[in-house]
């Protein structure tokens, strides 16, 4: 299994062969607060790097979810639609958002590793 990478929009991505699993980071959930609604992209949909790929709503506000890489959605995690609180409980494991078949693996190169992401999220303060 490859290393987990992170985007500036606070998504994490794990690549396994051609399949990327994508979710939002612990840091993102802390900023958002209690998540009460999740909307996921439909299976079969094509999504482009940095494009819209779902929505989360906390008690406070709605936030868009972006995909850090391009591809075709092959799976989405209905369990977080049914129980959005799971996203707060375990954002970087059980509460993944969707899986996609990656079209261009080189898009992974521009993403941050864990160390870089931690530094980024601390410095940006958001």
């Amino acid at each position, binding site marked *: 299994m490859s290393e987990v990478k992170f985007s500036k929009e606070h998504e994490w991505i794990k690549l396994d062969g051609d399949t990327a699993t994508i979710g939002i980071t612990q840091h993102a959930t802390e900023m958002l*607060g*209690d998540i*009460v*609604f999740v909307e996921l992209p439909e299976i079969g949909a094509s999504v482009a790097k940095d494009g819209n790929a779902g*929505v989360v709503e906390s*008690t*406070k*506000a*709605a936030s868009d979810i972006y995909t850090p890489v391009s591809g075709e959605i092959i799976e989405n995690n209905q369990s977080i*639609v049914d129980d959005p609180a799971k996203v707060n409980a375990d954002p970087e494991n059980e509460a993944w958002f969707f899986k996609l078949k990656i079209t261009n693996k080189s898009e992974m190169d521009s993403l941050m590793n864990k160390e870089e992401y931690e530094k980024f999220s601390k410095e940006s303060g958001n």
Partner: protein
Amino acid sequence: MNNKKTALYNLHEKKGAKFVPFAGYEMPIQYSEGIIQEHKYTRSNVGLFDVSHMGQLFIKNENELTEDLEKIFPLDLKSISLNQSKYSFLMNEEACIYDDLIITKIKDGYNVILNAACKNEDFEIIKKLLDNKYEMTLNSSLSLIAVQGPKAAAILKDMIKGTENLSFMNGNFFRYLGENIYITRSGYTGEDGFEISISNNKVEELAENLLLKGAKLIGLGARDTLRLEAGLCLYGHDLDIKTTPIEANLNWAISKKRLIAGGFIGFDKINSQINTGTRRLRVGITPMDRIIAREKTKIFNKGNEIIGEITSGTFGPSVQKPIALGYVDSKFSVLDTEVFLEVRGKKYSARICKLPFYKKSYVKGANK
């Protein structure tokens, strides 16, 4: 931008508050446990809210104060008893609402609790309407805290004897920390509770003592979900200067007696709206799906025509479903009418529903 801080700012910070600017103040939106936990704790136990940003206006009794106030507020102030509180609103001639408020008859005058964002303008409006005849103070040396929840009466009684005997929407002075503090049985969460006015230099000690008794600090985030579940209006959202109390379905707050005799600002408009109806009305709305319709969400009828707009919407942690308040064309205000809410370009079915979303548990007649 230099926002003001309340006297409890340091305590909020110590308890892990996330601050947001609100009406010129740095206010806690939530603490470390988050909005849902805070909300549920208030419903099951007791929450402590810092509402010191709200205006505490005192108008000193002289001359014809009660009569003069009756020219402003649609209340039967002559008949209310000493220490009784009433919900009301400050209106213009067109019966449009400058602010909603709680007015209490106290020994030497009246006490009016005003919204933070409106308090300074309210002060000027009221002063002008009273022809500058009375001594008026917007007292910033006092803090205001709300203690809300089913255990509020029990913990407060342990600290301040006699508070348990207050009836809902009644107040009195109590002795605490060497001071006379004013406590009313009231709140804005749909729970039994109290609002306590105490000087800025004593409020932290009072708050710490309440926390020791088991109260938890609750931020503005949960205050909003609590009041919305209780179907209560938030000024600047569900009420504003383009809205009348009749449109807002707040007829209950207008004294029946005053509606016969009139003689208050906005009476003509209110009277005509009661008789002929209004074009739009405030209603409760429940989305059928798990979607949240936020403020400004457009409301449609079956024929795809816009019939209104959401003014507050959230996910209700106690009712476990999305809830909203909004205004619709009056013919669509009938209970169970199907409407459609446009969220992110898609239309979702919703129903007009009864308010409150969450059943209130106020203590009406405590033992006197």
